[in-house]
């Protein structure tokens, strides 16, 4: 299942390192919400920017991931500059992605930070996924940005601790609404290799 959404446009790419920037193409906050579809799910919606080329990843059989080292393998997934959003078969409704331009740009900022942190710390990465996780009974509704790293649990948890500090540093630099989303509506997750010690 795959849909194309207006409003998110890939405006810059850096094939060498996979850095990707997106901007909101809508100009009116009033229409943005109409463009972005909200789906209230108990859990499991997967909204991933790009396409799956990491099918052999041990934990990505249905979660689309973007290999950071192979830009060409997913660049073809973009459709006239619009982001192709893939969902998992677990979704109970069509549509997802971002509810607002601020949400999209907060995610883009966090992705960029994760990628730069990994580069800076020499952490091998295997991709990033973006999922929405909602459990309204427990008042949880957030976008989960997961970076897959080629580390074992302890090293990955250490890296996660460092990333968390960097996120704390990033938030004050974001614009008001983006900062609020990054603070309360966005989770940063580090997934280690299950087979690594």
């Amino acid at each position, binding site marked *: 299942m795959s849909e194309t959404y207006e409003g998110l446009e890939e405006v810059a790419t850096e094939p060498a390192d996979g850095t990707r920037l997106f901007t909101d193409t809508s100009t009116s906050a009033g229409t943005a919400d109409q463009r972005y579809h909200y789906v209230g799910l108990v859990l499991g919606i997967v909204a991933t920017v790009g396409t799956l080329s990491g099918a052999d990843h041990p934990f990505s059989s249905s979660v689309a991931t973007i290999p950071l080292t192979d830009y060409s393998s997913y660049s073809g997934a973009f459709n006239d500059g619009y982001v192709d959003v893939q969902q998992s078969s677990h979704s109970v409704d069509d549509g997802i992605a971002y509810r607002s331009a601020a949400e999209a740009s907060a995610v883009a900022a966090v992705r960029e930070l994760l990628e730069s942190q990994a580069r800076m710390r020499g952490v091998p990465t295997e991709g990033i996924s973006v999922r929405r996780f909602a459990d309204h009974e427990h008042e*949880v509704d957030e976008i989960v940005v997961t970076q897959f790293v080629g580390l074992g649990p302890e090293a990955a948890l250490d890296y996660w601790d460092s990333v968390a500090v960097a996120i704390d540093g990033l938030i004050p630099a974001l614009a008001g609404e983006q900062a609020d989303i990054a603070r309360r509506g966005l989770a940063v*997750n580090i997934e280690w290799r299950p087979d690594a010690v």
Partner: protein
Amino acid sequence: MLGEVWRSISNGAPMPFDPKEFFAVAQHVAEAATDATLRSAINRAYYSVFLVARDRLRVDGTSHGSVITATREAHRAAGEQLGELFRLRVIADYNLDPVASDNNWPQNWKRAEALAKRVRPSVEALVPPPRG
């Protein structure tokens, strides 16, 4: 020993339950290594940390979202890792047919176990927010 100390300072009141015991239960239950026991173990592992965080941060009620948010605000890494434990627990408890990447219970348990071990000391060290 701890019980005696507690009784001496609490006029004989029973010692409050330590959620850490839930983690011991989780590890014990996980030994059976079936999907059902591993799902149950993840649940107990989560509560072994969640209850401590709720207590330390004095979050009223049972809103998991509020506790996770408060933990993130007090200690981002611990909050993020508690959040991941929560997601694993929700899938374990409620989702009968998760997507394939979420449906590997030995793997999910190992992740939850590592997360709980890591998060617990951070959460225990949290300082309650000032009253008022």
